[in-house]
């Protein structure tokens, strides 16, 4: 076949960088954070008409800075919950990116379902953050055009503090899952609480979220710089889990975030847990690949987020693996931006972080520990 050669324009879509996507799960009836994202002219919002209307942002549609979407969920495998995707997001991202002037960033807003303006439905797949994140990772067209940058979840400090004080469940179902896998949890309204109440809310959130950062909304100021450019779905797992108690098992090191919950308090323990596995030395690539496949195929619906940096060669950089449910992507670990090189010990350490429901921690640690060493 003939090949294209001469006469090509200097800028081509494939040579341009993929558009970063920030997934935002705002607190219901609070448009402050959404407005901050909207105030940045580089951002294009993808949200429901209800959300844009309630935030007074419908006018952005006319100037091409917002796109309307409505949840449209289907399963790639009939009846399989873990294969659910939001087709509307694929469509919206495609139409938002394929413009003459591409957006610098897409902000996908995931609302909680409130049919007829009534109560929030917590188990609706249309408002499930994990389904949205899974969609953005699994679809080939989105992978070609855009890249998931980070997940930002907003929390109302007053409501959380009230629930905490009353002994009610802090978060349930999808909200808890979203908080557990978030890269940034933004606590808004904390200035209305006492210092001890804020501390209690922050601790409760840190107990659920072991993978990202919990930040106060008022500390962010008017900008959202701290919430974008995270590249959190490409980098190796953050080290925030290293503070946890460690439990050696099966040759690997296991950290169990949910064991930190105070069993004597009035709330139920979080159903979502974080398992951190670490291991020194080079792993056999084929055995590691088989282990990853096994982990995903055995319980894809239970894995909300997967993040790993695996050392499978003494010569090559570690392999960073990211995913949610059955979607998994990998790429070589990038060198640090400051030009420094990783310490030899860090280069040869494999770290796996699994966030999920009812994960069998002991079994995971044992199987990870039993991966054959590389030669």
């Amino acid at each position: 076949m003939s090949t294209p050669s001469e006469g090509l324009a200097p800028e081509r879509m494939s040579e341009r960088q993929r558009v970063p996507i920030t997934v935002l799960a705002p607190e219901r009836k609070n448009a402050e954070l959404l407005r901050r994202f909207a105030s940045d002219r580089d951002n294009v919002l993808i949200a429901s008409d209800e959300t844009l209307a309630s935030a007074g942002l419908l006018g952005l549609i006319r100037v091409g800075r917002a796109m309307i979407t409505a949840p449209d969920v289907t399963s790639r495998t009939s009846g399989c919950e873990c294969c659910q995707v939001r087709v509307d997001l694929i469509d919206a991202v495609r139409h938002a990116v394929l413009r003459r002037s591409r957006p610098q960033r897409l902000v996908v807003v995931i609302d909680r379902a409130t049919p007829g303006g009534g109560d929030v439905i917590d188990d609706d797949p249309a408002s499930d953050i994990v389904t949205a994140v899974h969609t953005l990772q699994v679809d080939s067209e989105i992978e070609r055009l855009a890249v998931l940058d980070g997940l930002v979840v907003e929390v109302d400090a007053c409501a959380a503090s009230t629930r905490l004080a009353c002994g009610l469940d802090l978060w349930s179902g999808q909200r808890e899952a979203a908080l557990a896998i978030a890269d940034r949890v933004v606590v808004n309204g904390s200035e209305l609480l006492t210092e001890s109440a804020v501390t209690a809310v922050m601790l409760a959130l840190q107990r659920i979220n072991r993978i990202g950062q919990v930040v106060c909304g008022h500390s962010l100021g008017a900008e959202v710089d701290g919430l974008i450019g995270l590249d959190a779905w490409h980098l190796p797992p953050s080290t925030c889990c290293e503070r946890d108690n460690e439990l050696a098992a099966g040759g690997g090191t296991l950290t169990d975030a949910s064991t930190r919950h105070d069993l004597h308090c009035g709330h139920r323990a979080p159903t979502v847990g974080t398992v951190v596995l670490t291991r020194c030395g080079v792993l056999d690539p084929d055995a590691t690949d088989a282990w990853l496949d096994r982990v995903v195929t055995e319980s894809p619906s239970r894995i909300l987020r997967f993040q790993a940096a695996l050392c499978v060669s003494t010569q090559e950089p570690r392999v960073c693996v990211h995913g949610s449910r059955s979607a998994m992507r990998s790429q070589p670990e990038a060198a640090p931006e400051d030009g420094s090189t990783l310490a030899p010990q860090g280069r040869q350490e494999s770290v796996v972080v699994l966030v999920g429901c009812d994960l069998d921690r002991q079994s995971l640690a044992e199987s990870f520990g039993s991966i054959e060493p590389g030669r």
Partner: protein
Amino acid sequence: MTPSLDHVLTTAAIDWRVVLPDAVRVLRWSPRGRLLAVAANGSALVENPDRVTAPMTPDPRDAIWLGERALAIVDPLAGVLTAGFDRDRPLEFRGARRIGTHGGRTIVAGDGRVAVFGHPGIDHIPEVIWTGIGVTHACAHVSGSLWVLGGTGGLALVDVALGCVDTRLELPGVMAVSPRAHVGRIVASDLAGIIHILDLRCLEDGTELAGYCDPVRHLALSPDGCTVVAAADDEITRWAIATGGDVADEPVSVVAHDATITVLEASEHGFLASGDEHGVVHIWSPLLTEYPVATLRLDSEVTALAWNGDGDRLACGAVSGELILADITAGAVA
């Protein structure tokens, strides 16, 4: 145009080239060969390269000629906009995504429903048919008053004269459909990466073509209904269907482009055009499937292709707004 081995001498000559204000989203030919191009910002070019309208709608998704003098554009937010009917407001239809017309009826497919207009310039209140397949992503006329719709929840055959769904088939997210009524066949592709070859008389009786890693978004059925052409990644695959309906065990595959294929369009005369994300458009002959017989180049990702009714003109649109019109002359040995 009769396919022959002379197609190796096929030429593609650019007639004119113009740049629209935004990415080219939709290209449509009228029955007599007038071109409509709709850009992503809602502006439209109608026949004349010097005649581009102001933006008409914020998010155009599909468009259609209604005869030679009128056209309609659908937008999920704005509804159905018509031009040429002295109408100054769009017809309300939230979620409108696809539009088609045949035999004096115009259908607009949207979120779980189809609106059937006698004539969008006259009718204000359409007949609405609930499809039960969720959001419509693909729509094609089959024969008579029968249309096939592909949506999030599957496939539906809709009889717009009777105002009802004839048959519905549950499939995971149908992305593309292509019917050939004279052989009683429909092909559809879904999000699971499976192509379904279906019998019009009984949709449940079908053949599944698997082996694709990703969803097949670009699909065509040859005019004789005997070859299914699918594009995924940089490959074009052709599945032969025997007269009795048996499908070949393996497809004939060719790495057709150096980059991901973004558009595939079949002419009614057997030729095929494929465009990629590098702006390359290849023309393929039905008898010479391993190599393109002609190539065109645009300055950025190809977003739309359209053959005219005679199969001798090809319109190509790019994400930069570049639009070219090429005369395709089938090769012939003197």
